[in-house]
C-alpha cells in the first residue's frame, strides 16, 4: 500500500496529514542536525589530522556562552515539536461527540467487530467515507493493539477495560489492520482490513445483513435471561438496584461520598465487580458476573443500558441515521450469539 510519495505510507484519514506534518518537521530537524554534526566532524577530522607524531595542540578553554547557546537552541526547537505533537495527540484521542460507535473485541488471534445496527464481522471493518467513527474496544484475553497505518491511528486494547479511538476516513479503499501489541503465538496473523466505502455502498452493505439483532436488543435479551430485571426493572427503572434509565453519561453519587460519571468503564466494572463502586442508598447485594458473561455480551449489555433514556424506556435507535431500521421489538429478538 504505497502512496505516490516514496517511503510515505498511504494517507486515508483526516488525521494522517496532521501526523505526517509533524513527522516531516521532525525529519527535517533530524536531517539538519545529523548533516551539520557529520559535516563539522568530517571537516575537523580532515583539517586537524595529526601531521607529526609528537605534535601537541594548544588546549582550548570552554565557553559558557557556547554551552548556553547549544543547550537553549535545541530546547526551543524541541519545545516546538512537543507543543505541536501534543496538540495533534489531543485531537487523536478525544473522540468527537457525534461519532458513529462501533464495538471491537480482540481475542487471540482475531478482531471481532459489532456495528450498532447489529452487523458483525471478523477481521474486517466496513465503514463509510467521511463519517466520524468511534471505536469502543476491549479484549477477552491479553493486550492487543488496533493499528491502521493509513489512518495513523493506534490504541491498545486492554483486558478489563474499554479503550477508545476515533477516525474519519477520507478515501475509499481497503487498508491494513494490524495487531501492534505482541499477543502470543499467532500475533502476526491477527491482521485484517478496514474497508472504506461510499456512503450509499455502505448503506447497501448494511441492508445486505438485514435481520441481525442490534447489540442493544441482544443486550435487552441478556438483561432478561441473566435476571437483571428483578432488581433493575424491565426497562431499567430501578427497584432494589439503582435506576439504569438515563444513567449513561450522568454523574452518580457513590456510598463513599465520591461522585463519578457513568461511562463505559464504570458500567463494565459495575457488572463484573459490583462491590467496587456502590451507588449511594444501595447495599452490596448484586452478585458478580465475572467469568459468567463474555466480552461480547458485556458490550451488548452496555449498548442496552446506553439505549435506555428516561423519556423512552424502549431501546432507543442507535446513533446511526444512515440506515432506517424497524424499531426493535424485544419479542422479535433472536437469542444472542
Amino acid at each position, binding site marked *: 500500500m504505497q502512496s505516490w510519495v516514496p517511503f510515505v505510507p498511504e494517507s486515508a484519514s483526516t488525521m494522517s496529514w496532521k501526523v505526517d506534518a509533524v513527522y516531516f518537521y521532525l525529519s527535517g530537524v533530524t536531517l539538519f542536525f545529523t548533516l551539520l554534526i557529520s559535516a563539522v566532524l568530517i571537516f575537523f577530522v580532515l583539517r586537524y589530522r595529526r601531521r607529526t607524531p609528537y605534535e601537541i595542540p594548544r588546549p582550548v578553554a570552554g565557553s559558557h556562552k557556547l554551552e548556553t547557546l547549544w543547550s537553549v537552541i535545541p530546547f526551543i526547537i524541541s519545545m516546538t515539536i512537543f507543543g505541536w505533537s501534543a496538540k495533534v495527540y489531543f485531537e487523536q484521542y478525544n473522540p468527537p461527540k457525534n461519532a458513529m460507535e462501533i464495538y471491537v473485541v480482540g481475542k487471540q488471534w482475531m478482531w471481532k467487530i459489532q456495528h450498532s445496527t447489529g452487523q458483525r464481522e471478523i477481521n474486517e471493518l466496513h465503514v463509510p467515507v467521511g463519517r466520524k467513527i468511534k471505536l469502543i474496544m476491549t479484549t477477552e484475553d491479553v493486550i492487543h493493539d488496533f493499528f491502521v497505518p493509513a489512518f495513523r491511528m493506534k490504541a491498545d486494547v486492554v483486558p478489563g*477495560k474499554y479503550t477508545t479511538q476515533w477516525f474519519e476516513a477520507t478515501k475509499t479503499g481497503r487498508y*491494513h489492520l494490524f495487531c501492534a501489541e505482541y499477543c502470543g503465538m499467532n500475533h502476526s496473523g491477527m491482521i485484517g482490513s478496514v474497508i472504506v466505502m461510499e456512503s450509499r455502498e455502505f448503506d447497501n452493505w448494511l441492508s445486505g445483513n438485514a435481520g441481525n439483532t442490534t447489540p442493544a436488543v441482544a443486550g435487552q435479551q441478556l438483561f432478561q435471561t441473566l435476571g437483571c430485571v428483578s432488581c433493575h426493572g424491565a426497562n431499567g427503572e430501578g427497584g432494589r438496584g439503582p435506576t439504569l434509565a438515563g444513567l449513561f453519561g450522568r454523574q452518580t453519587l457513590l456510598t463513599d461520598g465520591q461522585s463519578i460519571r457513568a461511562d463505559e468503564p464504570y458500567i463494565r466494572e459495575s457488572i463484573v465487580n459490583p462491590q467496587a463502586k456502590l451507588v449511594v442508598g444501595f447495599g452490596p447485594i448484586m452478585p458478580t458476573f465475572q467469568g459468567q458473561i463474555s466480552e461480547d455480551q458485556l458490550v451488548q449489555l452496555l449498548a442496552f443500558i446506553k439505549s435506555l433514556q428516561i423519556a423512552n424506556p424502549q431501546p432507543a435507535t442507535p446513533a446511526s441515521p444512515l440506515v432506517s431500521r424497524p424499531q426493535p421489538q424485544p419479542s422479535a429478538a433472536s437469542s444472542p450469539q
Partner: protein
Amino acid sequence: MKAIEAFETPQPSKVNYINAQYGLKSWLLTKDHKRIALLYLGSITFFFFIGGLYAMMIRLELLTPQGDLFHSTTYNKVFTQHGIIMIFFFLIPSIPATLGNFLVPMMIGAKDLAFPRINLLSWYIYLAGGLITIYALLAGGVDTGWTFYTPFSTTFSNSYVVAAGLGIFVNGFSSILTGLNFIVTIHTMRAPGMTWFRLPLFIWAHYATSLVMILGTPVIAITVLLLAFERVARVGIFDPTLGGDPILFQHLFWFYSHPAVYIMILPSMGVVSELIANFSRKNIFGYKFVAFSSLAIAVFGFLVWGHHLFVTSQSIYAGMIFSFLSFAVAIPSAVKVFNWTATLYKSSISYDTPMLYALGFIGLFTVGGMTGLFLAALAVDVHLSDTYFVVAHFHYIMVGGALMGYLGGLHYWWPKISGRMYPEGWGRFSALVIFVGFNLTFLPQFVAGFMGMPRRYHAYPPEFQVFNVLSSAGASILGFGMLIPAIYFVWSMRYGKHAEPNPWHLPGLEWRTAAPPPTENFETTPIVTWEAYEFAPPEETEIVGKFKGELETA
C-alpha cells in the same frame, strides 16, 4: 614534544596481574578487579554470541514475507531470547563490569575496588543468573518478548516465564553490587590530588551509571517477583480477571527499563569522552558540562518511563507531561555531542581504530537520539510505536551507541589489559565493516516502521519485503564484522606485538603503570598534580572566539 616524553613510563618488573598466579583456582577465587574484569569479559562475550546467533535467526526468517523458516512459536522465542540475553546479560554489564571493573580503580589511582570480595560475588551472581536463564532456554524457552507484558506473561504463555524471570531477578543483584562498589570506590579511594574535577569523564559516567543501577534495579527485581507470584500463586496483581491491572506492570517495568537504557549508554559516553580527548590530544571542551550532563541524564532518566505508554490508554495529560520530560532529557545528550565535536577543533587527530569507533559513535548516536525525539513526540509516536521504527531507534542507541563505545574502549585499553597490541589494519577494517553493516541493517527499518510494519511479526505483508531483505543483508555484513575482532583479540593474546606501557602517549593514570599492570596497579601510590586530559601546560590555554570574560578554565 617534551610533554609527551614525560608521560613515558619504563617497563618495571616482569610480574603482572596475569602471571602473578597460575591455575584455575587463582582465577575463580581472585579478588583482583582486573582478573574479575576478565572473567566478566569472557562471560559477556559468550552471551553476546548466543544473542547474536538469535539475531541471525530473526534476520533469516524475515528474508521472506511468509513465516516459512520456523514455526511462529519458535520465532517468538527467538526474538524474546535475543532481547533477554542481549539486554540483561550483555549490554547492561558490558562496559561497567569489564572496562569499568578494570579501569575505575586504575584511573583514580587506587589498588582495587572498595569491596573486592563483593566484586567477585557480583560475578558469581551474574553467572548464576546466566545459568538459570540458559536453563530456561534449554528447557523450552520463553515467548513473552523481553518486556514480559501482562497478562500474557502471567496467565497465557505456556513457556518458561518464571525461570527466565528468576534469571533476571538474580542477575539484578550483580548490577546493584557493581554499582555500590563503584560509588564507594570513587568517593573514598581517589589518589592524593585526584579531585572530583580532575576525574576522567569515564569515571563521571560510571558514577552516574552506578546511581541508576542502585536506584533502578530493585524495581525490576520486585516487578519480576510480582509477576512470578501471580503466575504461580494466582494472586491478582496484573491480571484483570483476578482483580489486577495489566498496565501497572508496564509502569513498573519501564520505571526500571527506561533508566536501564542509560545504564547501557552512559558508560559508552564515558568511553567516547576518553577516546575523543586522547586521540585528539586535547582537553574535553566544557569538561564540567559533559560531567554534569551524565548526572542530569541519570536523574531525568527516571522521570520519562511513561513515554512507553502513550498508546496504552494512559491519561492524555500524563502523556503530555512524560512527553515534555522526554524532550528535556534529550538536551544533556545533545550537549555532550556538541562538546565532543568542539573538542576536535584545532586538535591533533589520529585515525587509530578506537578513534574510528568514537567518531562512528557520534554519528550513530546522533541518529539514535534524534529518532528518539520522533517517539517522544506524542502524535508521531501513536503511529510509530510498536513498529520497526522503534526497533531501529533503540538499536541505534544500543548497538550504534553502547556497542560501538564498548568496542572502541576494548581496542583502546587492550594493550593495557593484555599487554599486547591488536593488529591495527584489521582493527580499522573491521570498524568500517561494522559501521557499514550496522547502517544497512537498521536504516531500512526506520522506513519499514513508518510504512507501518509492526514489530515482533513472524510473517508480514509482501510490500515490506524490500526493507527486510536490505536489513538481512546488512545483518550478515554486521555479523561478519563482529567475528573479525573476536578472532584477532584472541590471536593477539599469544601472537600480538608486546605493548608499551603507554602506547598512545597519554597523560591518564592508567597509562603510568606497566602493561599488563601489576596486581596492586601502581608500584607506589600516585600523586596527581595535573588536570584531566592535560597534554600541554594550562598556561598555554587558548581562548576561542570573542567570548572573553566569560571563560571557564577547562
